[in-house]
């Protein structure tokens, strides 16, 4: 939402970015501009001081030594450790995203069902998985199946870290996606489905030909930003010793070269680049969806993130 309004003054023509009023500030006059300049100066000094403190501390502990950073200039570190780790992260995220989308469609539509015996269990499953932390689901996906099979006197090989991670990510993000689908369908004006019924379509037809196509446009940005969350959550693979980007970057690279902080910084930069790229995609989809006249639903924004938790619906 933009709040700036053009002010027809000479000053704003010269420096348009600084002199826009916002809900908080009027367009600054000469005195306010002077004050802003002083604040800028103070801010620069304070920020530089904070940066100095961090850099001094890093330097004091010899974190800028060339030998700590040199591994990242070697090809083998990238091809043998970082890129396979990135591959592991993307693989887990990709597989989990596909299953989460399927889970989300099934349970989102299930919760919208008019039959209580479908909608109530579907709602209970969705709310259960949204209310508990992802990590304990991953732990249970890993340790649970062998223990349960043991109760039936069957021996099950231990669940791999990859599978446990995918199961956990699917259940949690699938439940969030189910809520996104549900609110996407609910955001379509009632007249749309009524029009469908009035020309003789059945429930399935109205859902498939009228509601879903419009809802997809509206909820696409929210879906993409949930997939960014999913990608970030694959980092939990570190805790269950799955060979993802974080694990390879921190256990392999810094284990071999003893460069914890440089490794953390490099791994963080990779995550940030991927996530910003996906975030830009979501923003672009949101803009496109707002322009689109194909859907009568309001666009579910990327900013809001996950749909509201239990007790906070209907706001």
């Amino acid at each position, binding site marked *: 939402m933009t709040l700036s309004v053009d002010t027809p003054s000479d000053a704003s023509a010269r420096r348009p970015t600084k002199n826009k009023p916002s809900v908080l500030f009027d367009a600054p006059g000469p005195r306010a501009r002077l004050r802003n300049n002083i604040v800028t100066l103070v801010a620069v000094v304070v920020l530089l001081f904070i940066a100095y403190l961090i850099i001094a501390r890093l330097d004091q502990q010899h974190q800028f030594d060339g030998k700590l950073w040199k591994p990242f200039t070697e090809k083998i570190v990238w091809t043998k450790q970082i890129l396979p780790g990135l591959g592991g992260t993307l693989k887990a995220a990709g597989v989990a995203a596909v299953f989460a989308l399927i889970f989300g469609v099934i349970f989102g539509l299930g919760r919208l069902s008019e039959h209580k015996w479908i909608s109530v269990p579907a709602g209970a499953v969705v709310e259960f998985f949204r209310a508990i932390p992802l990590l304990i689901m991953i732990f249970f996906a890993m340790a649970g199946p062998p223990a349960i099979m*043991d*109760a039936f006197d069957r021996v099950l090989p231990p669940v791999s870290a990859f599978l446990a991670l995918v199961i956990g990510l699917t259940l949690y993000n699938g439940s969030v996606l189910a809520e996104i689908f549900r609110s996407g369908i609910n955001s379509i004006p009632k007249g749309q489905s009524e029009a469908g019924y009035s020309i003789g379509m059945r429930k399935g037809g109205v859902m498939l030909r009228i509601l879903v196509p419009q809802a997809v446009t509206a909820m696409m940005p929210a879906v993409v930003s949930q997939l960014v969350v999913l990608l970030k959550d694959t980092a939990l693979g570190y*805790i269950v010793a799955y060979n993802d980007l974080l694990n390879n970057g921190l256990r392999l690279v810094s284990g071999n070269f003893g460069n*914890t902080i440089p490794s953390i910084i490099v791994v963080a930069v990779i995550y940030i680049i991927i996530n910003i790229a996906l*975030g830009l995609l979501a923003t672009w989809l949101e803009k496109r969806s707002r322009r689109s006249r194909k859907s009568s639903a309001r666009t579910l924004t990327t900013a809001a993130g996950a749909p*509201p938790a239990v007790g906070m619906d209907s706001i």
Partner: protein
Amino acid sequence: MNLHALLDFGPLQQNFGTVLKAFWGTIRLALLSGIGSLILGTVLAAMRVSPTPVLRGAGALYIYVFRNTPLTLVLLFCSLGLSDTLHLQISHDPSTNGFWLATIGMTIYTASFVCESLRAGINTVPLGQAEAARSIGLTFTQSLRLVVLPQAFRTVIAPLGSVFIAMIKNTTVALAAGYFEASAEMKQMFDTYGGTIPIFLGFAIGFMVLTLPTGFFFGWLSKRLAVAR
């Protein structure tokens, strides 16, 4: 057939004290990082809406970095980086030190989400409100205090609630920083007794006791204080 993996709540009863202690660890971490991230997030939001480009830029940089970094990495930075490599010691007691490091990591991470919610709240206040406040002669501080912020704070209650619920669930990741809380206790019990359904259900219900009332409270509060427009 031995149905202990399906029905036996014994392990939970035997370790009830430890489980409660573990959940107290979760609550303590959540409360302190909640307060910390509210303070840091408000400072960041103030920076991001300030008329000073340098402050806006610094705030945006912070948000870009910490919103897009996985929490696990942030917490590992606190434990492996701040503590082990940079030798930053807050307390000589290792468990107290672990608690503070986890709190710092959770605060740094959650503050970026708090900041974005607050900023979105300020942006929902229509420009006309501020213009009306100025036109009746209110000063900058008065218009902020009497008109803009009351409306902004009310709209952010629900989004802030979502952020805090997510944070309560995120405290489980503090396990990566070596802090003892509920998920660490569940892992230990899984290692001792196997991954039985009763243990999982016990901890799941424990977390639901924390997250569901938080959701209802913030939902009630935001409805009660909703801005009529």
